[in-house]
């Protein structure tokens, strides 16, 4: 399904769509408040952008540095060319441990690789431990936002599914009550798990360590209780130096939720005595994106979600309308690189207002890349309906006579034609919009009357 079709489904529940729009705008406003507390905000964005640009320009060097230093620290480093290999590596580790249940903290990469269905097919129980992720896992849904995975749901939805799965009181929608029910349920899972999987926010080449940020503490609850920790990262998550974290940790949470920092920022450098620590470096198309010069810097993304919260289209169409693992503006420039045909409507899901670019903490020129993708897609897909009408208009504007006649005809016919003909499916501009009121005469006629 295309983005406009999916968005139409989302917009059917007007009240919920309005709530979604308003709620994300509040998050955007919170971001504005916290960034204004830092006079050097723009300087930090510039630094972050430069650090990421530098890293990408020497990515092979830094990946080897990371592997060397992490290995020296006692971390087992694996390389995966694609999603399948990533899943196989995890499957093999779990087989070796004869592990039948894992706990997992939020990782968009494992969503991208469809790790959960892969493991479930092997008979392994996967428990997503981020509260939002656990909720959508119960509902068998993907996340609709990369930072707030359950932002599309109302507390009544969550109350219903918790009543079914966790036997909470029917109709009790109190967020505190529901969160505590999840706390008890997940604590049991944490205490039993032998293997914990996490994502990675930043990996540091210089020290061979990696950083995981959460507010709930679920990543730490998982890994410190388990015997084996498997961390999965896209190869673009690298930064060169430990001190670079000072820049990125100041930017990440402020951009994401308007907090000054996430409450837990854990640095993993070597396993606890007697335990195991694995780090999987995943490509899955990233080197292809790196090869596209116009789109290369989309790999600077630190997954804060700020571009989603600010986007007038995302807020009014919901994360599912994009049909991609990463939705919103950043998803619309990453996804066409993965499958141009499947995601061909995404770069058009934008007003090109540029708000995404303005809020991006690593200064990705998102709206410009959306525009670039549109060129690529139009080239690949040929003429569209809008393209045909543009050609028609081109003919009319070229000939003064044609212009005069068609103007008169339109003024006469639009008054009398029924709406069903004017707002026909071929008129893409008539969807959700009304035509302006018709002037009684043309400008030319008016000019003749009023000026000499």
């Amino acid at each position, binding site marked *: 399904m295309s983005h406009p079709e999916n968005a139409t489904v989302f917009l059917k529940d007007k009240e919920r769509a309005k709530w979604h729009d308003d709620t994300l705008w509040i998050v955007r406003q919170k971001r504005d408040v916290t960034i204004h507390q830092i006079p050097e905000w723009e300087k930090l964005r510039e630094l972050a952008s430069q650090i990421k640009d530098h890293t990408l320009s020497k990515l*092979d060097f830094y*990946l080897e540095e990371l592997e060397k230093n992490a290995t020296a620290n006692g971390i087992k480093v694996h390389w995966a060319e694609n999603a399948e290999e990533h899943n196989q590596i995890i499957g093999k580790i779990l087989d070796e441990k004869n592990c039948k249940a894992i706990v997992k903290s939020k990782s968009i990469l494992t969503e991208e690789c469809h790790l959960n269905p892969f493991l479930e097919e092997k008979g392994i129980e996967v428990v997503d431990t981020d509260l939002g992720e656990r909720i959508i896992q119960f509902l068998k849904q993907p996340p609709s936002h990369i930072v*707030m995975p359950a932002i599309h749901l109302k507390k009544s939805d969550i109350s219903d599914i918790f009543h079914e799965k966790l036997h909470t009181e029917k109709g009790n929608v109190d967020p505190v009550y529901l969160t505590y029910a999840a706390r008890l349920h997940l604590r049991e899972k944490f205490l039993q798990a032998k293997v914990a999987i996490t994502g990675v926010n930043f990996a540091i080449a210089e020290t061979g360590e990696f950083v995981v940020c959460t507010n709930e503490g679920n990543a730490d609850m998982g890994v*410190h209780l388990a015997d084996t920790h498997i961390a999965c990262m896209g190869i673009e998550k690298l930064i060169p130096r430990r001190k670079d974290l*000072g820049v990125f*940790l100041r930017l990440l949470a402020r951009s994401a939720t308007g907090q*000054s920092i996430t409450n837990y920022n*854990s640095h*993993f450098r070597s396993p606890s005595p007697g335990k195991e620590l694995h780090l999987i470096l995943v490509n899955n198309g990233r080197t292809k994106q790196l*090869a596209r010069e116009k789109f290369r810097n989309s790999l600077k993304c630190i997954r804060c979600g700020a571009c989603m919260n600010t986007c007038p289209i995302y807020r009014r169409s919901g994360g599912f309308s994009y049909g991609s693992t990463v939705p919103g503006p950043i998803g619309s420039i990453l996804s066409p690189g993965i499958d141009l045909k499947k995601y061909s409507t995404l770069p058009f899901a934008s007003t090109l207002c540029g708000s995404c670019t303005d809020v991006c903490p690593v200064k990705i020129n998102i709206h410009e890349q959306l525009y670039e993708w549109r060129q690529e897609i139009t080239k690949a897909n040929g003429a569209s309906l809008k393209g045909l009408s543009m050609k028609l208009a081109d003919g009319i504007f070229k000939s003064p006579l044609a212009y005069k006649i068609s103007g008169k005809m339109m003024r006469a016919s639009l008054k009398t034609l029924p709406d069903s003909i004017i707002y026909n499916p071929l008129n893409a501009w008539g969807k959700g919009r009304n035509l302006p009121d018709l002037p009684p005469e043309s400008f030319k006629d008016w000019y003749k009357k009023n000026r000499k």
Partner: protein
Amino acid sequence: MSSKASILAAIKGLNMKEKPLPEIPDFEVAPDLVEAYTHSLTGNKGTVVSKKELEQLILETGFPKIYSSSPAFESFTNCKLPQHPADFADLDLAIIEGQFASAENAAIWLDESNLDLRAIPFITAHLVIVIKKENIVGNMHEAYERIGDTNSGFGVFIAGPSKTADIEQSLVIGAHGAMSLRVVIL
């Protein structure tokens, strides 16, 4: 070809021109670091308490299971460090020492030298971190300067209690980890 070799070859094949790595300059910090720290911690839903206030709280609340690795509160410890962290699932209060803290966001740095078990600050129901006044720095850049190249298997910045807003953006304290964070500044 191994996946490692093919990934590295794909990147090398692009012959990208190296872009410069910037140096990170110093930025201005708050004039009164203790005041700024207290303000930031409040924003993160943590509380600054005095040594006396904490002692009184412990006496009044009567936490059944307390573990302190901070010498200042050692006498309150009433249990032994277990072999396996899961045996601390019923820990009511942990008191640990932090190395230093960043005033701009209330984040406190702890590493394995402060953590007898990595799980302690997460698994405990309530957490107290003790820091010294002179160990409050201005921002995260100064914090990483302090960390320097120290080598610890695990280190963490903790800035508040466990929290979530995943249900309709309503803030709830105590998702999986500690349900409260109190900081004693000595």
